[in-house]
């Protein structure tokens, strides 16, 4: 039982009795980019009702003394496969690919709130995530959705918040990928003036075997400002992507962008936010020869909005380690925190989450030490103002195998 820390016990007593909770004297990183300061946060119901110093509380408020522990908004992964991929190598546990739909493939209805990745990432501080379709040969993979990671069967989140796609090295020419992308965007333009059925009868739509859902998604992309996350790396491809944004008025976000430093001025002028993995400095393809650890610093110094992906599946909380490395190589600390929280919320219009500001939803993590140190860990986690247990399959297995009782392990539970 040693694993059930004091934090665990406090959380459950909180859950039962308290009407409001005061997080007193934490080092608050608001997620907005402002410098951290010691503040109190009052949680009433699902919201942050007050934030400041010496807040007035009534007798029914549970007070948690933080003594300067770091507090951040709950982390938001901007690109995950949480809830739709249980085990990568087992196709029967994957819901991230479609054989029929392309741009209009929505993963929303596949989301499994009981997936083991959810408590694991939640206990590591990720309180919500954008879950995106897996990559495919087609330049648009489909539609990502946003999910609150409270594990509830009453799924909370937002359906189809962004389109995901990719441009760069493949078995065909990137010139063809670009041409197909443009053609799709043109179909999207037509969708505002032509019925879906007529577009489907167009030669290109037939050739690409598009479905009604694809056309609707393209319409949202071109005419309704649906965010479009396009993965691309080579400097000249980034310029092509910037040109696409201008030509079609896209709400474009670029991901990976390993050669962005070579076109930093154009990228800055384009106002495009980016999603990067700051630890990936491997020239893993001939598109990424400029890959380096100073990517985050250069983007940050140019004032570009930055969010963070992770190299591997299942551990989206490792964006903390990634952004920590970015800070070690010159990114500002508050940009790193903001990149894991408020920048994601703003970029993808995720509503009232992502920052520690009065009136926002109380998705909050209190850390045992600097959240950018990989060795740090959450002490308290709140989603919608509700305390969350730090339990996961991993903690259950750890308890079982550190229990020195002589019984067979299957009787330790």
């Amino acid at each position: 039982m040693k694993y059930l820390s004091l934090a665990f016990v406090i959380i459950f007593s909180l859950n039962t009795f308290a009407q409001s909770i005061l997080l007193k004297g934490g080092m608050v990183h608001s997620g907005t980019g402002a410098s951290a300061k010691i503040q109190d946060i009052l949680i009433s119901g699902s919201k942050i009702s007050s934030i400041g110093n010496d807040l007035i509380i009534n007798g029914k408020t549970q007070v948690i003394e933080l003594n300067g522990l770091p507090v951040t908004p709950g982390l938001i992964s901007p690109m995950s496969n949480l809830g739709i991929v249980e085990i990568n190598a087992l196709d029967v546990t994957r819901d991230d690919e479609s054989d029929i739909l392309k741009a209009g493939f929505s993963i929303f209805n596949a989301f499994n709130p009981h997936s083991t990745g959810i408590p694991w990432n939640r206990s590591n501080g990720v309180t919500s995530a954008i879950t995106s379709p897996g990559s495919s040969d087609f330049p648009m993979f489909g539609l990502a959705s946003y999910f609150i990671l409270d594990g509830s069967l009453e799924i909370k989140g937002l359906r189809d918040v962004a389109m995901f796609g990719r441009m760069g090295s493949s078995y065909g020419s990137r010139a063809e990928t670009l041409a197909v992308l443009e053609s799709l965007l043109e179909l999207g333009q037509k969708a505002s003036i032509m019925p879906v059925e007529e577009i489907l009868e167009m030669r290109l739509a037939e050739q690409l075997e598009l479905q009604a859902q694809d056309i609707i998604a393209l319409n949202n992309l071109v005419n309704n400002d649906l965010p479009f996350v396009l993965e691309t790396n080579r400097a000249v491809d980034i310029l092509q992507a910037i040109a696409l944004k201008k030509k079609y008025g896209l709400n474009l976000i670029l991901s990976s962008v390993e050669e962005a430093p070579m076109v930093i001025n154009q990228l800055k002028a384009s106002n495009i936010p980016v999603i990067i993995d700051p630890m990936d400095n491997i020239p893993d393809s001939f598109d990424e020869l400029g890959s380096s650890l100073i990517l985050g610093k250069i983007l940050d110094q140019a004032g570009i909005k930055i969010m963070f992906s992770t190299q591997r599946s299942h551990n989206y909380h490792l964006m903390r380690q990634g952004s920590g490395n970015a800070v070690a190589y010159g990114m500002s600390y508050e940009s790193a925190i903001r990149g894991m929280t408020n920048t994601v919320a703003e970029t993808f219009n995720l509503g009232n989450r992502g920052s520690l500001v009065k009136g926002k939803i109380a998705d909050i993590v209190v850390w045992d030490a600097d959240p950018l140190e990989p060795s740090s860990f959450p002490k308290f986690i709140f989603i919608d103002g509700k305390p969350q247990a730090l339990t996961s399959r991993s903690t259950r297995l750890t308890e079982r195998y550190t229990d020195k009782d002589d019984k067979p392990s299957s009787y330790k539970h």
Partner: protein
Amino acid sequence: MRNISHLTLLLLLTAACSEMNMSPSSAVQNSNDYFGSTYEPMESEPTLFQSANIYDGLGGELFDYDLLIADGKIIEIGQSLDQSGVKVIDASDKWITPGIIDIHSHMGVYSAPSVSTSSDGNEATAPVTAEVWAEHSVWTQDPQFALALKGGVTSFHVLPGSANLFGGRGATFKNISKNTIQAMKFPNAPHSLKMACGENPKRVYGNRRQSPSTRMGNMAGYRNAWIDATEYQEGMQELDSDDRPKRDLAMDTLKGVLDGDILIQNHCYRAEEMAMMVELSKEFDYKITAFHHAVEAYKIADLLADEGICAAMWADWWGFKHEAYDMVPANIAIIDQARNGTGCAIVHSDDEVGIQHLNQEAAKAMSAGNRAGFEISKAHAMRWITSNPAKAAGILEQTGSIEVGKDADVVLWTGDPFSVYSRAEQVFIDGAVAFDVNDPKTQPVTDFDLGIINPQATRVQ
């Protein structure tokens, strides 16, 4: 008596070599003379690190100590050491650790860029390919070597992949880019043999409708190979060379394991499979040096400690396949603490990004262990990326700790090596500065990096 037997051996060898057709046993003997290390340390000057904080890699820590290295070796550790005639580096408020060692790397055999033409790590054409040697695939211009060096990695063990039951021999390298493989090989380091359990071999061959397609098929495949190897080993002891079997590269490797010259590095995730591999090693009388990946090692931690087998693990990878489903972040700590702290835990990378941050991976594993109720210090956790991997690679006598007489493979860190904000400021290999963060001239640039984006520039500086 000893002299006589030496003389006899010498005569036998001379006789064998004088024959036109070399006998099998002398050929085996001589095979060790080929592809050997030609590594030479770079030029170095005697260097004194003043007032450093030191993790010695064996669990010890020293605050405000001096360290003297010269002629490629660690000469003295003490306070107020004589600084006359040596280069002095002010190391106050900085940390010194042994050079970081990765026991599981595919650098050079899966080089960057990761394209089909540089995919040289799995000879996935038959389940038993003990005849192949990873070093014969290594591309010396892999840009990943230099990136690992910036992360403090001074030695690494390159293994074949895990498609096969027996994937081939692994070899250990000093992290100095040269343009021949032999010039990078760690002098006198033993070969390893890569074995693989579980999903990979049964998937690769099962998909081709051949054995193994199941875990029991895996076991039968290992046992059949060891039966052949035992017979080969016995056959090679025949006094009359005509009675010996024809030389066989795969059998040479397996025989090397049975003879105790080649170390087993065994890719294995699940607890019961690792226990089964231990039983297999007893059936054929060989030793397993380390289980690799070992996601479920924590379930059999006492067994591994009792058998003296190391486990090389990730801090937190999981979920990418079924046998990696039961991950616990305390795995490394549980192995370390087994049987009153006699377990051998290693943090490995198996990854070109992870190898650059093994210090951070160890930090995660340490804090997860402490959350699970252990009391593991930083000095102790440093063993997981220095002396323990050195032990598993068979190079602990030469490197892996800050001890007088050892190779001067050391890293000077800008701060606490377990912090994300600390970086390797200087990396020394055999006493020579292999990397200096403040001096571009002391940062290796491979042929690949040179002029590839812009003819006037190098790829990254």
